[in-house]
């Protein structure tokens, strides 16, 4: 059994983290010069209207009280209203969320579908040595190329990758659209098409990361004594891999997969901006540029929530997957 006490302490520390995050963001935005009310209403605003808005934004009370008011609103599921759009922040997040979730799901499926098989293939290519030399040469060449690709993908900045993808698939080959995101409820096939390039821009570096982790992990497991035992009792390399190595090797890979999923669910400001996808990242970008404090606070809090809860769930998953953890 997972000890209840460690579970509680983890939950508490996650809550504390969220509290500190909200504090940091609040403090940063207290420094903004200028007056939010006057910038919205104009300098010659009706004083009555001005007072009303000040009251609504709680600008008539000291900052610490404003923070507490925001916090108490949070517990009632009320993140306040956006300054520029005069809409509830929670509704705006709800509108953007499906697009980011769709992008994250797409990317994550690509990471799984490409990363795991490629990592496995590279490992087996590395292990095999007794084949005919002709085959060996091509396999080694492919292996080397793949390794170089992995290093390049780990290095290329996301927006640069986005541009390369647009250039190759959108402009030279004319296969896929480079902009014009279509919502899922408007036209489903077009929605799928419009997600391919953005999701690849997000997933390819993660694929490289998964390949690298899986390979390191498999190599490590392959040198363990139990692996040698398995081989010496007559199992083929493939059987050893399938029955013994893979399960153990996947445990560290799980972390990186979790981190990838958590990060994509937080939305990517850069990729969403590059492809014009109205998701969480775009919302945050507009919010920050418009100095729309309630919106920035709400969206960053959402991101922090996804990250902290994600890491918490990942910890729990570990306790389930790796029984050794329970003994601590």
């Amino acid at each position, binding site marked *: 059994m997972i000890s209840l006490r460690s579970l509680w302490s983890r939950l508490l520390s996650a809550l504390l983290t969220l509290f500190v995050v909200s504090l940091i963001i609040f403090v*940063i935005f207290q420094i903004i010069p200028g007056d939010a009310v006057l910038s919205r209403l104009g300098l010659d605003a009706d004083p009555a209207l001005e007072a009303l808005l000040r009251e609504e934004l709680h600008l008539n009370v000291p900052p610490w009280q404003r923070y507490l008011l925001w916090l108490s609103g949070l517990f009632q599921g009320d993140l306040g209203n956006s300054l520029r759009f005069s809409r509830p922040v929670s509704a705006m997040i709800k509108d953007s969320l499906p697009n980011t979730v769709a992008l994250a799901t797409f990317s994550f499926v690509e990471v799984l579908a490409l990363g795991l098989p490629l990592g496995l293939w590279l490992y087996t290519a590395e292990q095999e040595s007794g084949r005919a030399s002709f085959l060996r040469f091509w396999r080694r060449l492919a292996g080397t190329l793949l390794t170089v690709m992995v290093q390049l993908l780990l*290095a*290329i*900045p996301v*927006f*640069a990758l986005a541009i390369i993808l647009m250039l190759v698939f959108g402009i030279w080959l004319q296969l896929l659209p*480079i902009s014009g995101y279509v919502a899922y409820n408007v036209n489903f096939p077009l929605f799928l098409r419009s997600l391919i390039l953005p999701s690849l821009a997000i997933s390819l570096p993660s694929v490289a990361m998964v390949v690298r982790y899986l390979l390191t992990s498999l190599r490590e497991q392959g040198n363990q004594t139990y692996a040698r035992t398995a081989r010496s009792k007559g199992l083929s390399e493939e059987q050893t891999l399938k029955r013994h190595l893979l399960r153990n090797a996947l445990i560290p890979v799980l972390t990186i997969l979790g981190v990838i999923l958590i990060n994509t669910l937080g939305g990517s*400001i850069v990729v969403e901006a590059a492809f014009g996808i109205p998701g969480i990242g775009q919302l945050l970008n507009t919010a920050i540029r418009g*100095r729309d404090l309630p919106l920035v606070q709400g969206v960053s809090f959402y991101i922090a929530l996804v990250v902290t809860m994600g890491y918490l769930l990942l910890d729990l998953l570990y306790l389930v997957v790796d029984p050794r953890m329970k003994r601590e």
Partner: protein
Amino acid sequence: MSRRNPSLILGLTLLGLLSLLLISGFFVDDDSAYMNVAGQFEPPSLKHWLGTDKLGRDNYARIAIGARSSLSIGACSVLIGGALGSALGIVAAWYGGWLDLLLARLLDALKAIPNLLLALMIVTIFGSELPVMIATISLLAIPLYARMARAATLKLKTEDFIQWTRLIGIGIPRILLRHVLPNITGPLLVTASLGFAGAVLTEASLSYLGLGVPPPIPSWGRMLSEAPLFNAPWLALSNVVVLTLLVLGFNLLGDGLQQMLDDR
């Protein structure tokens, strides 16, 4: 070096090439980076190695001059962020208690906010002039080094020889500077080489989003976002190559340094 270390060699080679690019920036005709010396969107030629942009400015000159702000931001983030972060991490880990608890909490919380988000917020508020940009990115690098230094110091603290230094009565500042710091420089250098690349990327992302070092100073990220893919693909491609090789160089350097540490 006891074993072959291709990562280190390749990494250093790439970074050497980039330094050449940086140095060549001081010899190119400055005007060609700012004024139109040719027709717009000229493809690469002997006169303009990497073509010209929409204002007829020489692309190579702009990339070479853009290297200055990118690399100075990277270097400052390593120097300032690295020094402050390591100091914070070492001191907190050494003294423990509420100071360490506070730092650990803060570092945890900062992990939940993407660096780019914080950078965006700070730059929106304070503007994006080069000094602000350097300060912002250096500040944001502090947690990276603090985390690393803290973990390494916590581990080191239990070692016998460190216990000895305390026992024979060496002053704490001396212990930290002469005995703790030299023993964690290895991991810190690995972190620094990744941190350098990370800082350059943060600046490039900001300027890609239009919030980087203001024009007319050439900036890699902005050049990339302004490059028209359709009529002048060489502009975007040359930028992508430079940025990728820079990050690749530092990644490989980090790998190589790590391998050197493991070999020891």
